[in-house]
């Protein structure tokens, strides 16, 4: 297929995934900021929402301080923020249009209707928290529909595999970013200095990757920070864990490799990252330094993006 087509499919999936992640982040932050201070302490959760979205620096070029109004605006509706939800959906539609024939009708319909709804119902942003809640749900439902349509209707060929690559690479990046911002809350027992305040931070982390109920099913335990780290990093049964994302990245890259009869740096790099995750345990990671581990992962993940681009997309 054309490199350009592959690139569009890859980015289309990334944008949709990112929009959903932003919506989850905002939702989890709203929830945690509605708590009384005695339950959450004095941290500025809107600041960490910006950090997990990776747009903190750009934000502060425009705004003085991070609060609910301006962070929600910046992450959701702003045209100035290239990765606001609004811009993600717009970019997703633009990508869809230019590869219209590589998409199934269902996928196109999902993206196009979302974009139309964005124009008609959300051009003025969300005036109230109620409206915002509806908006965030609309974004998440769009992503679910898009993902479901791709899964159910696409041919299993390179078009599908490239779109999956975008999804899992973006997803891995998102999960790693939460860990990067919140790692200090997830240290092992002997290093953990948090008090009861951390509980609501933990649930917030789990909520932003929709893993709160999953946690209990996996560990059958009350919330323990080091187990949350284990779930998000190493547990390959959780779709948003780093391990699961890399399992999928390797599988999809392998399929591309088999179908093209040729492998390259992308396959090797992805396998390298996956093997490291497979052979790690939390004890080693904590010993090595959780933060360092995550930062290396983020760098590795972004390198994979570059390699994929070089090998296939440009």
């Amino acid at each position, binding site marked *: 297929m054309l490199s350009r087509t592959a690139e569009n499919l890859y980015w289309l999936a990334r944008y949709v995934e990112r929009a959903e992640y932003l919506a989850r982040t905002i939702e989890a932050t709203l929830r945690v900021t509605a708590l009384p201070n005695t339950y959450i302490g004095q941290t500025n959760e809107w600041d960490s929402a910006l950090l997990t979205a990776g747009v903190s620096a750009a934000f502060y070029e425009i705004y003085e301080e991070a609060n609910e109004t301006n962070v929600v605006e910046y992450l959701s509706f702003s045209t100035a923020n290239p990765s606001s939800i609004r811009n993600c959906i717009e970019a997703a539609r633009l990508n869809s249009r230019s590869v219209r024939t590589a998409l199934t009708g269902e996928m196109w319909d999902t993206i196009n209707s979302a974009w139309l709804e964005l124009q008609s119902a959300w051009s003025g942003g969300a005036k109230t*928290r109620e409206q915002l809640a509806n908006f965030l749900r609309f974004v998440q439902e769009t992503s679910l529909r898009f993902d479901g349509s791709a899964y159910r209707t696409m041919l299993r060929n390179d078009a599908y595999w490239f779109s999956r690559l975008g999804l899992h690479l973006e997803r891995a990046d998102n999960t790693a970013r939460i860990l990067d911002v919140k790692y200090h809350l997830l240290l092992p027992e002997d290093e953990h200095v948090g008090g009861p305040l951390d509980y609501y931070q933990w649930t917030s982390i789990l909520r932003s990757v929709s893993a709160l109920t999953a946690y209990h099913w996996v560990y059958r*335990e009350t919330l323990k920070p080091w187990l949350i780290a284990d779930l998000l990093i190493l547990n390959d049964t959780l779709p948003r864990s780093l391990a699961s994302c890399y399992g999928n990245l390797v599988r999809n890259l392998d399929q591309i490799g088999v179908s093209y009869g040729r492998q390259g740096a992308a396959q090797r790099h992805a396998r390298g990252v996956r093997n490291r995750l497979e052979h790690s345990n939390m004890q080693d990671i904590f010993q090595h330094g959780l933060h360092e581990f995550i930062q290396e992962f983020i760098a590795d993940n972004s390198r994979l993006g570059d390699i994929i681009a070089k090998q296939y997309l440009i």
Partner: protein
Amino acid sequence: MAVAFDEMNGPQGELRPAYEELSRWLKETPPDALEHRRQEAELLFRRIGITFAVYGDSESTERLIPFDVIPRIISGKEWTLLEKGLKQRTRAINMFLKDIYHGREILRAGLIPDDLIFQNPVFRPEMNGQDVPHDVYVHIAGIDIVRTNPDEFFVLEDNARTPSGVSYMLENREIMMRLFPDLFARHRVAPVEKYPDELLSCLRSVAPRSASTEPTVALMTPGVYNSAYYEHSFLADKLGVELVEGRDLIVKNDEVFMRTTEGLKRVDVIYRRVDDDFLDPLTFRPDSALGVPGLMSAYMAGNVTLANAVGTGIADDKAIYSYMPEVVKFYLGEEPILKNVPTWRCREPGDLAYVLDHLGELVVKEVHGSGGYGMLIGPAATKATIEAFRDKLKREPEGFIAQPTLALSTCPTCTESGLAPRHVDLRPFVLTGSKNVSIVAGGLTRVALKEGSLVVNSSQGGGTKDTWILDE
């Protein structure tokens, strides 16, 4: 009956501080917006599947408990007092149960008549001398609280068997946060979401000694036809434990196992939502198909913990209820923080005579009734009903107690003719584990939706509200 105390507009009609923000918000919000939200809430409840079955109702077997979108607000100060009182009461209940099934100091002290215990059908002789882990009998208590004025809380019932309703506490909050994020953000409401986690650690803490360090907990339900089935499945999911029915369990060598795809797996703690009578056909009702043959023998051998313990009914029995203030004093040497509703024991001739003379003013309850069934509310009853009760009382006085008709407090509630005060009660959930007694700041507020009605039970036309404890 006196005019009821309204929790928003106090005794002199003055706005009480906890409700200031709500009142402001209500003034800003058009009534049709409330109605719109009410419909949305109903849709959400249906989608989530929070329904309950009404026994003996073939028309619609799955019904929604009506949800009132106006929250009930309790100040931090009020809650602190309530919390203290609830913990005290629960501690006393657990000590009472241990005593009743062991040394019986309280009977020897002559505080409670022997026959009230030994002839009581909910007393379980099987439990005599039986130790339970950490002396905890009532792991989960749902103590019903009512108030009649700004300063006093009364315990209406100590539900110490298998109290239900906590899923409504949790889901009502989710719905409120979803439908009214603005109103919510204008308050500082203590969260309730920790309840499943606290319940899980409570259950794990009382695992038998023979359990592994990672005890296996399961929730036992009578099955999909039970009226509280939704709650059972909801809690099992939140806890991350298997939802089992009797047929999923098997007892071998006095150990309990569940049948899984990988073979038998030992169960250490069973949060059972099945009544004593149906637990084990070999010990209790032989016709019970819900139970597990041999479960009691595994329990006696100390290889499985049942939460709540067997035989806790003796602590929340309505005949025992009237003795609770003495029970608290006897075991803790403290004055009870929560009051008891004055109660006439119809088994005592003096009390019976008074009750028969004042049937028109009193509430008469069957000692073993629940769910608002088998109850006479004097002021609301017809002459014929009162006379029928008079006969029943004379025939079997020991089967009844009577209480004054309390003017339960009211809260603003959505009705067909706009906002109006409706009577409410409160069921907070008290957890007792090996180390501590804990209560999530909140509870289930039940509201009698019919004007003037005092019956809040869902089976009798009651609804629910989200309960906000302010963090101040």
